[in-house]
Structures are given as structure tokens and as C-alpha cells.
């Protein structure tokens, strides 16, 4: 297992998630793209901890997983609120803050 190949697989997954965030129209699709990006970041953290031979990478990844789960819960609650108040599920129709 080469360190570079691990990093590049994680970067590739991160970029795929970024593409999903930028291009998906459904809000849940955007949240799933954010999930992919978080996942790739955790993978890089664990890989760097493994390469250094320290545990800190795993601990930070543990905290990141917990924060991600909280973020998804709040994000999905926001999605339900938007769907109920504005009667839309599409990211490009929620443009109140766009000047």
C-alpha cells in the first residue's frame, strides 16, 4: 500500500463529492455530496496517522465522525423545514439570500 495512492484515492473521492455539491439540484443530493467529502477527509486523517505511526489521526477522525453525524441531523432538519415552508426540494430555488 503506497501512501501516495491512498492519498489520491481520497482526493478523488473528495473531488467527486465536490462535484456532487456543486451540480446536484436536490438538497438531499447536496447533503450526500458533503458526506462523501467528509468521508474522504477522514480517510486522509487516518492514513496520515498510520504513516506517522501515531494515534492522533484516528482520534481526530473519531471527533470528525461525531461532528459529521450532528451536522447531517441538523442539515436534514433544515431540509425538512425548507421543504415545508418554501414547498421546494431544489437547491437553486432557495435563493433568498442571493442579493
Amino acid at each position, binding site marked *: 500500500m503506497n501512501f501516495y495512492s491512498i492519498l489520491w484515492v481520497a482526493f478523488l473521492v473528495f473531488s467527486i463529492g465536490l462535484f456532487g455539491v456543486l451540480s446536484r439540484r436536490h438538497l438531499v443530493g447536496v447533503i450526500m455530496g458533503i458526506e462523501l467529502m467528509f468521508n474522504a477527509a477522514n480517510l486522509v486523517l487516518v492514513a496520515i496517522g498510520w504513516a506517522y505511526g501515531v494515534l492522533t489521526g484516528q482520534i481526530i477522525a473519531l471527533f470528525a465522525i*461525531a461532528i459529521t453525524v450532528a451536522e447531517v441531523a441538523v442539515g436534514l432538519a433544515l431540509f425538512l423545514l425548507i421543504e415545508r415552508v418554501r414547498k421546494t426540494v431544489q437547491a437553486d430555488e432557495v435563493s433568498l439570500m442571493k442579493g
Partner: protein
Amino acid sequence: MNGETIAFWVLSLGLVVSSIAVVFSKRLLRSAIFLALSLLLTAFFYISFGAELLAGIQILLYTGGVITLIVFVILLTEGIEMKKLEETHRGIVPALLASSLFFFMLVYYTWTSPKVRSLAASTPSSKFNVSKFLSESLFQEWVLPFEVLSLLLLAAIVGALVLARRERKEGET
């Protein structure tokens, strides 16, 4: 080409293909299932890095918790989703440009960075009893972030409840 390398490439291929399927599939439910698959494959990556505890937590929290939550939300809003979602993506070309630019930037940086090069040259450490050291370090060195995290989780619970609650009209019980 030993077994570990083959397993690594098979896992990587599965991870990338399922991530692409998450982003491109037309139906959201299918997309959520592929997201579960890619999170599961990441857990196998964690096992190969000697992070068995993290892999278990990943499977429990992500493929158990988050995917269930996402599937529930998709099913709750299925009626709205069904109409006029023939066009599931918008602005594919600029998004593709931006994300591939980002990818090549990351690859360029790690390829030219001397620190990453020296890290890649060093042999990875031998295995030790990770779960024991992890819990010791978590409750001694990292105890303050741990407690702050519990506060964050509490705030997230309250926030999600307040946001998703239906407003009760006057006179309704």
C-alpha cells in the same frame, strides 16, 4: 503484486465507482444506497490501516445512523421529489471543471511537497493494541475536546428538534 496491493486496488476501485454512482444516479434512493456502500468500503480501508475501532464506529454511525436518516427524509418528501426531477443536475461543466481543478491542485501539492515525500518513504509502524491506547488517549489527553463534543451533540439535538418541529396552530392540542 502481493495480496495486500490487490485488495487495496479492488477496494479503491469500488470506492471510486460507488462515489461516482452517488453523484450521478437519477434516483435519490439509489444514490443513498450507493453512499452506504462507499461508507462501508471506507470502513474496510480503516481496518487495513489498523483502525478497527474506527471501522466499527464508521459502520455503526454512518451506514447504520446517517443512511437511515437520509432514507427516512427521502421517503418523507417522496411526493415532492417525484414531480419534475428529470433534470437532476445543473451546471455540470463548470462543476466538473472546478472539481477536477481542485483534484489536480491537491495531487500537485502532495506530489511536490517534500514532507509528504519523506512520509511516504518511511515504513509504516508496526501494529499495537490500538483500542486500548485509543481509549486511554481519548480520556486523558483529549478529554476536553471530548466534553465539548458532547455539548455540540446536545446543541445539534435541540437544534434539529426545533427546526423540524411542526408549528402548532392556535386551539390545536
